[in-house]
C-alpha cells in the first residue's frame, strides 16, 4: 500500500521538479540544446501539463511517444559513435516522463482512492493559488498606482478595511468554488464507483488484472528501452532506482491485500522514520487530514516575486524546501564519464531526491533447492594445443606477463564471486528474481553468428529469453544469444554478484597500431554473454585486453596470434568488418554446416581451408569458475558448448 503511495508521491514530485528545472535551466545546461527548440519546447509543455491538476494523460502519452520516436529515429540516422549525446538525453527524459504517466494509470486502476486524493490536493492548491495571485495582483496594483503598502493614514485604514471586506468576500467566493468543485468530484467518483461495482464480475476482475499487467510491462519496457537504446542518457542508476520503487510497489503482499489498504488509515509512523531525507513529506499535511477532501487551512501568501517566475504556483508546495543548487554546467564528456563514478548519488540534477531505501527485510532465500541450467552438451570439439593453466597470478607477475602477452587460463581468480556461490547464476529462479520476475528487457541476437544472413537483434523480456531460447527451446527456433551487452549497468543488482578482478587495473604497454586509435577506458568495460549450447562468436579481434570469466557452463575458445595471416571481411553495408575474419572456423573444421547463403561460393573454399589449416593456434575448453586472459589483438573464436553465462572485462 504504502509503497504504491510512495511511488506515486515521488512521481508527482518528480514531474513538478522536472518541469521547473526545464524552465529554469533548459537553455543554460545545454543538455538538450542540440535537439532544437521545437522538441525541447514540446517536452517542457508535457512536463507542464503533467504538473497541473487534471492533465490530459492520453495526449501527454502520445506527445511523449512523438518525442521518443523523433529521438529514436536519430539513433538510426547517425552512426552510433557520432550521435550527438543530446538525443540520448532527450529520449531518456521523455521515457521517464512517460513512465510516470503509466504509473498514474496503473495506480488509478489499483488504488483509485489514493490517486483521487492526490488529484484533489492538486486541484485544491490550484484553486487556492488563484487567491494568492489575486492578493498579489491587488498589492502590486496599489504600488503601481503610487500608493504605499499598506496604505497609511485614516483614508488608508478605511481603504484597507474596504479591501479586507472585499477580500473576505472573495475568499468566501473561493471557498464556495472549492466546495462546489469538491461536490462535483465526489459525485463523479461515486458514479465511477457505482459503475465499477456493477462491473465487478470475475471476468472484469480478470480484465482489470490483465490491464494492470500490461501497464506494468509497458512501464518497464519504456525505461528499459531508454537504458538499452539510449544508454540511459546519463541516468542509468536513477532509472534503476525508480524501477526498484516500482518493484516494491508491485511486490506480492501489496497485490494480494487490497482490503487492508481501505480499512487502515495511512501509516504515519513509518513516514516519520526518515523525515530528514524527505523534507517535502514532512512539510505536507499529514495524509489523514485530507482523506475527507476537506479544505486545508489557508496557506501563507507567497512571496511577492513568486507570481512572476513560477507560472504554476502550486509547484512550490510539491518542491522540496531545500535551496536549489546553482546550475552547474557539466561538459558532455563529463556527463559521459561520470556514469561509472556516480554510484554514490544516482539522482540527476533534474530529479528531486529519491525516498530513502527501506531496510532490506527479506532473508536471502536458499537457492540450492532450485533447479540449475542443464549441463547438456550436444557437441564437444577436441582441444588440440591447450592453453597453460595457472591458479592466480600476483598483480606484479601479471603486469610483467603483459609485456610479452600470451593467452592464459587463471583457475582461482573468481572462486569467491557470489555469482558462483550464494547468488547462483546457474539457477534460472535466481536470475528471474533479479530481473523483476523476468520482466526486465534484454537485447538478444537471433541467428547462428553475426556474419550470417538473416541474423537480427530483438529486445525481449528476460523471462521470455530464458524460456524461448535457453531452458526449453523448440528445435525450429533459431539460436538466441544475449551477447556483448552491458547488462550490469542496466541491472546493477547483478553487478553486485561479481567483482572486477584487480588484474584489470594493470596498465598494459601502449598499443603500436596507430591506424585505429582507441580511447583509454577509465573503468574496465563489462559485458555479459548468456546463451544456449552452440552460440558462436566468429573469429575476430578486439581493441582491448580481455578477461573472459566463465560463470555457468562450458565454452570452447580458440585463439590466433595478432600477426597470423587471417583474411578479414572488409566493408559490408557501409560498416567496417575489418576486425572479423573471413574464415568460419566451425565450417572449416567440419563442426557446422555451410550457412545457406554462402553455398554457391564453394570453389575457392578448398584453398581457403588449406590456408586456414596452416595457421597456428591455441585452444581450450573453459570450465565454470575459470578465467581466460585474451591479449589485445589476438584473434578469438568462441563457441558455447552447454548453456553458458560468461562475463568479459575489457581494459587497456
Amino acid at each position, binding site marked *: 500500500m504504502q509503497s504504491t503511495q510512495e511511488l506515486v508521491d515521488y512521481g508527482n514530485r518528480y514531474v513538478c521538479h522536472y518541469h521547473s528545472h526545464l524552465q529554469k535551466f533548459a537553455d543554460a545546461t545545454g543538455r538538450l540544446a542540440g535537439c532544437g*527548440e521545437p522538441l525541447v*519546447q514540446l517536452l517542457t509543455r508535457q512536463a507542464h501539463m503533467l504538473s497541473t491538476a487534471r492533465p490530459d494523460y492520453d495526449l501527454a502519452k502520445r506527445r511523449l511517444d512523438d518525442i521518443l520516436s523523433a529521438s529514436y529515429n536519430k539513433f538510426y*540516422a547517425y552512426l552510433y559513435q557520432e550521435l550527438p549525446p543530446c538525443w540520448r538525453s532527450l529520449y531518456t527524459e521523455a521515457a521517464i516522463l512517460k513512465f510516470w504517466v503509466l504509473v498514474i494509470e496503473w495506480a488509478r486502476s489499483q488504488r483509485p482512492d489514493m490517486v483521487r486524493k492526490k488529484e484533489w490536493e492538486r486541484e485544491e492548491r490550484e484553486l487556492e493559488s488563484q487567491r494568492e495571485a489575486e492578493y498579489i495582483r491587488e498589492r502590486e496594483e496599489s504600488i503601481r498606482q503610487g500608493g504605499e503598502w499598506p496604505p497609511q493614514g485614516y483614508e488608508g485604514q478605511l481603504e484597507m478595511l474596504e479591501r479586507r471586506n472585499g477580500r473576505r468576500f472573495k475568499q468566501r467566493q473561493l471557498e464556495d468554488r472549492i466546495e462546489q468543485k469538491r461536490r462535483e468530484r465526489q459525485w463523479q467518483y461515486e458514479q465511477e464507483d457505482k459503475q465499477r461495482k456493477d462491473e465487478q464480475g470475475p471476468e472484469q476482475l480478470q480484465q482489470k488484472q490483465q490491464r494492470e499487467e500490461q501497464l506494468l510491462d509497458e512501464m518497464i519496457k519504456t525505461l528499459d528501452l531508454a537504458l538499452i537504446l539510449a544508454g540511459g542518457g546519463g541516468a542509468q542508476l536513477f532509472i534503476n532506482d525508480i524501477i526498484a520503487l516500482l518493484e516494491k510497489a508491485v511486490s506480492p503482499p501489496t497485490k494480494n491485500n487490497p482490503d487492508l489498504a481501505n480499512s487502515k488509515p495511512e501509516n504515519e509512523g513509518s513516514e516519520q522514520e526518515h523525515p530528514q531525507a524527505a523534507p517535502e513529506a514532512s512539510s505536507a499535511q499529514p495524509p489523514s487530514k485530507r482523506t475527507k477532501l476537506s479544505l486545508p487551512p489557508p496557506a501563507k501568501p507567497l512571496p511577492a516575486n513568486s507570481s512572476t517566475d513560477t507560472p504554476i504556483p502550486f509547484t512550490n508546495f510539491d518542491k522540496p524546501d531545500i535551496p536549489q543548487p546553482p546550475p552547474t554546467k557539466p561538459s558532455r564528456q563529463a556527463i559521459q564519464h561520470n556514469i561509472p563514478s556516480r554510484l554514490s548519488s544516482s539522482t540527476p540534477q533534474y530529479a528531486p531526491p529519491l525516498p530513502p531505501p527501506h531496510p532490506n527485510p527479506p532473508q536471502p532465500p536458499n537457492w540450492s533447492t532450485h533447479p540449475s541450467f542443464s549441463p547438456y552438451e550436444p557437441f564437444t570439439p577436441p582441444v588440440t594445443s591447450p592453453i597453460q593453466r595457472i591458479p592466480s597470478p600476483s598483480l606484479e607477475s601479471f603486469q610483467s606477463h603483459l609485456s610479452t602477452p600470451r593467452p592464459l587460463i587463471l583457475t582461482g581468480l573468481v572462486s569467491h564471486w557470489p555469482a558462483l556461490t550464494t547468488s547462483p547464476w546457474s539457477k534460472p529462479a535466481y536470475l528471474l528474481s533479479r530481473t523483476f520476475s523476468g520482466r526486465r528487457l534484454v537485447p538478444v541476437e537471433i541467428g547462428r553468428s553475426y556474419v550470417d544472413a538473416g541474423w537480427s537483434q530483438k529486445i525481449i523480456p528476460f523471462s521470455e529469453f530464458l524460456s524461448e531460447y535457453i531452458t526449453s527451446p523448440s528445435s525450429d527456433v533459431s539460436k538466441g544469444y544475449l551477447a556483448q551487452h552491458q547488462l550490469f549497468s542496466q541491472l546493477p543488482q547483478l553487478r553486485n554478484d561479481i567483482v572486477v578482478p584487480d588484474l584489470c587495473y594493470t596498465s598494459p604497454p601502449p598499443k603500436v597500431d596507430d591506424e585505429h586509435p582507441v580511447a583509454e577506458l577509465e573503468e574496465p568495460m563489462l559485458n555479459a554473454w548468456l546463451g544456449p549450447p552452440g552460440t558462436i562468436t566468429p573469429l575476430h579481434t578486439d581493441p582491448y585486453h580481455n578477461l573472459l570469466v566463465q560463470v555457468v557452463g562450458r565454452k570452447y575458445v580458440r585463439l590466433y596470434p595478432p600477426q597470423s595471416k587471417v583474411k578479414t571481411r572488409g566493408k559490408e553495408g557501409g560498416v567496417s568488418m575489418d576486425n572479423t575474419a573471413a574464415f568460419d572456423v566451425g565450417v572449416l573444421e567440419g563442426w557446422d554446416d555451410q550457412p545457406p547463403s554462402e553455398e554457391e561460393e564453394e570453389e575457392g573454399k578448398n584453398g581457403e581451408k588449406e590456408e586456414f589449416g596452416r595457421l597456428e593456434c591455441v585452444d581450450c575448453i573453459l570450465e565454470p569458475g575459470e578465467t581466460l586472459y585474451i591479449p589485445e589483438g589476438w584473434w578469438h573464436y568462441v563457441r558455447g558448448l552447454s548453456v553458458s553465462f560468461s562475463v568479459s572485462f575489457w581494459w587497456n
Partner: protein
Amino acid sequence: MALYATGLNAWNQLDFGRNQNDQEPDDIFTFTCLLKDKNISHIRPFPSYTLVYTTSQPLTPTHTSGLVPKSHQKLSRYNPHHYLHFAEAYNDTVVIPNHPTSPHPLQYPSLPHLLTDLLSSPLPFQPISYPFFQISQLSPYATGFIALATPFPDPQVYSWGDPRFTPCLARHPSPTSQAESPSPIPDLSSLPTGPVIKISSCSSGYLLAALTLGNDLYIWGHAGRCAEWFPDLSDRPEPAVIGDEAGKDIKDVAVGQAHILVLTIDNELWGRGDNSSGQLGLGKETKAVKEWTRLREVFDKNGGKQKIKGVWAGERTSFLFVEP
C-alpha cells in the same frame, strides 16, 4: 482555393491563427479546411511549422503556422535564397542547390555549419561541392538526398547518402560511384512513360518516390525501416499499382516520414502507411493502413465539383489544395 490538412499538430503547425490558446494542441485526425485564399501557389511543410506561399508573393510566405526553429529563422534572414531551396536530412546534413553566386550544389554537415559559413570569411568550413550537375528538384531523406538534375539531353534522378542505407540510394555503390557522392539511379532512366518529372521523400523517412511524365509512380526505400507499413518495399524503384489491376494514372505524389499520398488523374486521393497522428485523415482509431486505400471520399460526394489541385506531405502531416 482552400487548404485542407490533417495530422500532427504538436506545434500548432496546422493552425493558422484561428483558435490558438494555452491548451496543449491535439492532432487533427481528418482532413480539415485550414485556410481559404484564392492565390495559394504552394506550401512547404517543415516538421514543426508550415509555410504557405501565394502567387502574388512567391518568395516570402504569406501564411506561417507553428514554431520556426531559430536556425531556420537565421537562414531566412542571412540568405533568403538558400532558405527557399535548402534541404536538410535527418542526420543533419544540409544541401543547398545551385544559385547565382555559387553555380555548384554545396553540402554541409549541419545547418549551423552553413550559418557560420554565411557569416564569416574566409569560410571556416569547406563544404563539399558537386560541380557536375544542375539540380532542378532536391529532396532529403533521413540519411541522404535525391535530386532531379538536368544534364542534357534527359533529366536524371541522382541519389547520395549514408552507405548503411543503400536501399534508399536505389543503386549499388562502387569505387567509381560511391554512396556519398551523387550518381544517377539506373532504374529511373529510359522509362516506358517518359522521364521523371517529380521526386518526393521526407527529411526523416526512408521511403522515396518518383513520378514520370506519363503518370507512372515508382516507389522504393529501406524495407527494414518501413516494415510496419511497407513490408514489401523494394530497394529498386518499382511501379506502384493503385486503384485497379492496370494501375491508375497518377497526377501528383507526396511522401511523409512513413506515409504516402497519391492523387490520380481522375481526381481520386489514395494513401498508404502510418496514420498514428492522423496523417492520412483516417480518424483516431486507424493506426495505419498497409494497402493502398482510397481517402477522403467526401470530395467526390460533392458532385465532383471540388477538384484536388495538388498534394503535399510533412513528416506526419498531409495537405491538399481544393478548388473551388
